[in-house]
């Protein structure tokens, strides 16, 4: 079922790209505009997506009988708790980095990543995060002279 959707998704994407390219201006063959190549890539995706849809239709009928084999079926399975938790931490890092600063944000996020909810130990993640921050701060800020965000602690 999901395998069959793959083709139409690409066709839809191709249509959107083609429309965007048309709006940008495709120009002519003697004077191609900024949307010329994008239009070609959009049309290309429509064509390939259509072939995929036709080819996938037969295959999906067979795979419906054996749903365990569909590669996209794996994506339909609910993502693990650890995966969602890691993604949330990454997004939080991006959101807080400029306001809180590199040192505190990195420490908190690394603590969250090192922390194992099953073992519930705090000492190892604490020191591992501390060492990670110290090493990367020394490497990037002090040696490579990269300007890392200081947040509301200007002395860091």
């Amino acid at each position, binding site marked *: 079922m999901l395998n069959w959707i793959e083709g139409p998704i690409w066709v839809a994407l191709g249509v959107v790209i083609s429309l965007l390219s048309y709006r940008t201006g495709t120009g002519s063959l003697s004077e191609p505009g900024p949307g010329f190549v994008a239009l070609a890539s959009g049309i290309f995706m429509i064509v390939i997506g259509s072939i995929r849809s036709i080819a996938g239709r037969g295959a999906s009928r067979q795979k419906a009988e054996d749903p365990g084999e569909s590669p996209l079926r794996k994506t339909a399975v609910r993502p693990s708790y650890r995966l969602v938790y890691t993604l949330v931490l990454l997004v939080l890092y991006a959101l807080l*980095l400029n306001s809180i600063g590199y040192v505190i944000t990195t420490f908190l996020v690394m603590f969250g990543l090192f922390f194992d909810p099953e073992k519930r130990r705090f000492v190892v993640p604490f020191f591992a995060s501390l060492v990670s921050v110290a090493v990367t701060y020394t490497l990037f800020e002090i040696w490579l002279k990269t300007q890392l965000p200081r947040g509301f602690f200007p002395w860091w």
Partner: protein
Amino acid sequence: MSVLHDLINGFGVALQLSNLFACFFGVLIGTLIGVLPGIGPVGAMSILLPVTFGISPVAAIIMLAGIYYGSMYGGSTTSILVNIPGEAASVVTCIDGYQMARQGRAGPALGIAAFGSFIAGTIGLVGLMFMGSLLAGFAVKFGPAEYFSLMCLGLSLLLYLTRGSILKGLMMAGAGIFLSLIGQDIVTGKVRFTFGLFGLQDGVGLVPLVMGLFGISEVLVNLEEPGERMVLSTKIKHLLPTREDWRIAAMPIARGSLLGFFLGILPGGGAVISSFVSYALEKRFSRHPERFGNGAIEGVAGPEAANNSATSGAFIPLFSLGIPANVVMALLLGALMIHGLQPGPLMITEHPEIFWGTVASMYVGNILLLILNLPLIGIWVRILKIPYKILFPLILLFCLIGVYTINGNVFDIFMMILFGLLGYWLRKAQYEFAPLVLAFVLGPMLEQNLRQALILSDGSARVFATHPISAACLLISLFLLISGVFPAIQKRRKRS
């Protein structure tokens, strides 16, 4: 004589302290990456790409190249001792290498892998020296039509040789080209496809894209597959292969070196395919094919030589034509462009220090790798035991810092997370990233040459057919795509 003179100058560049350090750091990281399953050379190179911004272009290329061929060496260690390939090119080494280790011959297996790689790497470099300049001289005559068609051929070859579905590869290539067009148009200066986001005005960055697709998504997928690695508890002794081992392995090393080098030149060829072809070839040539799979030393020597020689071959189209043969070379191309250099036929004459410095550094790097891989094998084995729950936060941290330090912009972190998530879903749906990244890197050049060719010919598309090199490239591309797509569809139909 000129080649020898250039090579001596190259050694002058490679042996400068900063470049020597870059080479050492590159091969060390490469070996480490090769040893550790879960992060490949592409992921490592993309993570370390921002670190190269602060150093000279030649040191940057030396370091990144070191990571690439270093990972080929390191990959064999995990294949032999753990039966887990550190990276794709070492998959074949698992078959006989692990069996040798189980029979108590881990030492000779690791030894022949290291020596075979060294010999093949050196043979590959000799080929790179002579063929690089030769091809560059020929490519000077290329115009926009030839370049456009050559890039199409490169993409088609990559798609043809891709392991997964060719249709999926084609769609990824289309998406890669579109992503590369986001931002300012090179001809009119008009901003396109940015959806009003200021961060996209300079286009989608190569580093957030590759870090997301290769680094973040790999971590996300691995998070769902917990499992402890078991390291073979055999004592590693007698790393030097016996005279009998050398007698058996000599020809496979020679064949693997030549085969790997020529397959490496082909766009899409590279280390992975050459190692598989070498294994098949050795099995065919062998008087005792039944030994393969049961610890045949030639099953380790041939593929290991082939994958190392292929890394040298892959540099030829990059340096002489400016066209990357595989995704690793696409990253190197991106790195060169970030440093303001445009690889192509004129690069070897205009920036000889880059080409010859890199070639010479690879000789130095091969010797460093031999030193790193044989006496320090115990350290690499111990590193294998680091649990993934310690490794993955560190990989993520380097991705986060690396992507932020490019522009000091949080937007790049969001882009990386977005591509990481996209990469996670694409991996699950069995899409390969190589066509997307190669198309993304080639996209702007492809667009520029296509538009230039059309403007120069006053809108006549016949320009691509009337120029012989261009016509030949397009015909081969078409043949490859048709012969790749149609059997795949017929097979699906038959199956259903």
